[in-house]
Every structure is written in structure tokens, then in C-alpha cells.
């Protein structure tokens, strides 16, 4: 039986718990879960430098409100998806108490202890559900590799805020997600599957992002299984085929929301 390891950005990630429990429901063996510690000054500083005041919003939504940040009556958000798929676990350490899966806490997923543990368990695949850039030493001990679902269409849209960027650039056909292997570059690893996301009337960018989350869970789980069972192959990316995008300035984010409104009026 294939062995899978999970990388998670924090002990309370609903995305991580959803993907992990779905993989278990689908009959896969999870050998180990590696979780980044929440309280880590270096991490807080680097994320604040990257995200600025948006980090506070992220912490508020993902760590404090958690389930309460989603509207209960919506049918296409992570909360509804969890209900539909009978996902009951909402903290990573519950996988240890419920399924006896080792949950290893680490300051960084690139720690030597993570490398040693991977060498010991020899996973066939590592499923990445967040936690920062991964170094070569970890990548080379991850069996077939570390699989990530990028909230953007690869290869053209690498980096950050890549739901927003194609809308700003009037390329709404490039709103989508991509399951790909991580490599040393940024979103440049081999692609397994892409999926286009169509915009819906009345959606703002926050609604759109919420709608994409469950699609990412489903696509990451399906693609992991399809890959392990040999139904899909890696497609290498041309490095020159995409650009790296960065956090979008609030003025441009407002323009994106205005564009979304006007797109839907047409």
C-alpha cells in the first residue's frame, strides 16, 4: 500500500484536516503528519514582512474564527464541503488520537528532524497543504515528490494573489488551480492537473477564493490518488512560460473587485 506524508502550515488548518481525512476515507495510508508550530517569532516576522496588515486578517480568519468565518448557508465553501464529505476532524493532533498517525510538530518543514523522519518512513508521496518553501534536502526524501495545489493557473500565473492577477489583466480564462510537484523554483515543478474556475454572477474576490478552497481539496485528493495509481503523468513546465506575481496592492485589489462586478454585468 502507498504511504503518504502530509505537510501542514499550522495545527488548526481546516484545509489540511480536510485533505488528510479525505485521503483516509479514500483508503490511503497516512504515515506521518508534519505540522509547523504556530508560535515562532521568525515565522511571524517573515510572514508579516510578506503580507503586512493582511497577516492580521489571515490570523483572524484562519486561526480565530475558523469555522465561523464561513457563511453557514452557503453551499460552495469549505464548511459545506466538509459536511458533505463527513469530515469531522478539525485539529491535526486529532489524527493521532483517532487514527494513531504520528503528528510531528516542527518550527520549519525544512528541519533536519523532518528530513530524518522522511528517510525513516520513506513515503511514496508527500501532500503539501501549506507551510512555506521546501528545500532540496526535503524534496529529495519525499518519494515521488511533494505535491501541492496552487491557487492559480500554471505555468502563466506563479507566485501570490494569482486568483486576482488574471482578473486584473483581463485574462479571466486563466482563473484556475494547478496540482503540481514542488521543486526548488517557485511554482515551477511538473504539473499533474489544471482546472479552470469559471466566475459566477454576484461574486467578489473573497467569495471566489472561498469557492475555490473545496475545489482545491477535491482536486488535490483525486490527483494524488490518480498519480499513485498511474493514471496521470508529470508534465514538465517551461520555465519561461510564466511570470512570478507578488502580493497585490490594495488599490489594484479594489480595481479587481470593480472588474468582477462589470464582468458579470456583460
Amino acid at each position, binding site marked *: 500500500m502507498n504511504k503518504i506524508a502530509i505537510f501542514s502550515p499550522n495545527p488548526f488548518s481546516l484545509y489540511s484536516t480536510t485533505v488528510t481525512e479525505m485521503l483516509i476515507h479514500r483508503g490511503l495510508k497516512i504515515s506521518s503528519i508534519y505540522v509547523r508550530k504556530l508560535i515562532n517569532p521568525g515565522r511571524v516576522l517573515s510572514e508579516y*514582512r510578506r503580507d503586512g496588515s493582511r497577516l492580521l486578517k489571515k490570523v483572524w480568519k484562519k486561526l480565530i474564527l475558523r469555522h465561523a468565518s464561513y457563511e453557514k448557508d452557503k453551499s460552495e465553501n469549505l464548511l459545506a464541503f466538509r459536511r458533505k464529505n463527513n469530515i469531522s476532524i478539525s485539529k491535526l493532533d486529532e489524527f493521532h488520537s483517532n487514527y494513531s498517525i504520528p503528528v510531528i510538530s516542527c518550527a520549519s518543514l525544512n528541519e533536519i528532524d523532518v528530513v530524518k523522519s522522511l528517510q525513516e518512513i520513506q513515503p511514496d508521496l508527500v501532500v503539501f497543504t501549506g507551510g512555506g518553501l521546501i528545500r532540496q534536502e526535503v524534496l529529495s526524501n519525499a518519494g515521488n515528490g511533494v505535491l501541492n495545489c496552487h491557487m492559480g493557473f500554471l505555468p502563466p500565473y506563479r507566485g501570490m494573489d494569482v486568483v486576482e492577477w488574471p482578473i486584473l*489583466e483581463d485574462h479571466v480564462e486563466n482563473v484556475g488551480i494547478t496540482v503540481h510537484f514542488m521543486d526548488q523554483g517557485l511554482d515551477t515543478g511538473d504539473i499533474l492537473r489544471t482546472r479552470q474556475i469559471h466566475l459566477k454572477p454576484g461574486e467578489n474576490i473573497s467569495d471566489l477564493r472561498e469557492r475555490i478552497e473545496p475545489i482545491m481539496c477535491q482536486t488535490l485528493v483525486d490527483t494524488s490518488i490518480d498519480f499513485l495509481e498511474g493514471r496521470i503523468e508529470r508534465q514538465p513546465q517551461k520555465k519561461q512560460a510564466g511570470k512570478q*506575481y507578488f502580493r497585490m*496592492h490594495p*488599490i*489594484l485589489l479594489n480595481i479587481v473587485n*470593480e472588474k468582477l462586478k462589470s464582468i458579470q454585468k456583460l
Partner: protein
Amino acid sequence: MMDNMVIRQWWNLIHSIDKNVLEENASSLCFLHNSEQILDLKPLPDLQFPVLGSIGLFSMKPSFKLLSIPEILFLRKSVLTNEKIPQLEAWVEFLLRYLEINRPSIIKRARLQFGSSQVGRMALLELTALFMDTYFRWGDLRYLNLVLKIMDMPRIYSMSSIGKKITGQNKNLPFLLIQIRLMILRQAALDGITRI
């Protein structure tokens, strides 16, 4: 964001500056990418971007440490004259990434690289002008995005009580003019995007 009326008032003050002084600051004022028409500004007399000697920048791997202000001006002129050569693209893309990734420490880095806070600030303003020109010439919104972020940094871009300072005698005129140009182009760029 700055009101178009204020921009026009400042622009009129620039018109009252001696032409020789304006010529000395031509790199800060020429190539306004049609923004005079968009914002209804009276055109300035014809100003020429400084003539720059050939610099062997394109034979070198892009690096922030290789830059001085003449090199940044050389890159700006290459972009403005529509030279879309691979080495130029590699340099400008490198600088975009460098400033995005190192933005929190860029003022310190510029001070160390350019020898003083003043020269470091001017270099960062020239780099911002390079990104703005790149946006207008190549239409790549990532460059405008970075310009907007830098213009939020008051230690680089500061427009407080600027109207009183726009005279040919002001020693800081180069700083004022390059910032006014950035402000005008930002307004024109955002007007252009929202109009579409």
C-alpha cells in the same frame, strides 16, 4: 490619492521654473506617457533625456550591487526607447523581484549600496521611475503594483507641503520633480485602468 486639481497647480509651478533648470532635470520630467492629455496638463517645453554613455551592464548577470544612478538611468532610457532585448528584460525582472522580496529592508540596503541616505533615496526613486516607465512601455501590471507599494513608503516618497517648495532655487528640486512625475503617472495609470 492626489486630486487632479492639485496636480495641475503644481504642474503650473513647474512651468514657471527656468528652462535651463528644467533641462538639468530632464530625466525627471520627460516621457510622460501621454499623461498630460489624460490629466489635462499644459505640455512642458521639449526636454531631452540625458545622453548616456554605453555601459557594459547587459554583459553582466543582474545584481543590485552593480547598480549606480547612471546605470539605473541607462536602464530607464533603454525601456523608454522601446528596446525590448532579453538582457534588458532579465535586468528589469530581476530588479522587480529584488525589490519585492527585499522591500522591508530596501532603504537600509540602498543606503549601504549608494553610500548615503540621500543618494540611496534618489536611487530608489529612480528605480521606481524605471518600474513606472516599464509599466507604461510594456503594459505589465506587476511593475505598477510595485510602484504603488514603494509610493506608500514615506521615507522614499514624501509629498508633504510640496507646493511651497517648487522653485528653481530649491536644492532638493530633483527629488521634488521625480516625485511629481511619479504622482502624475500613477494618477494617469490608475485612470487608464479604471476607464477600461
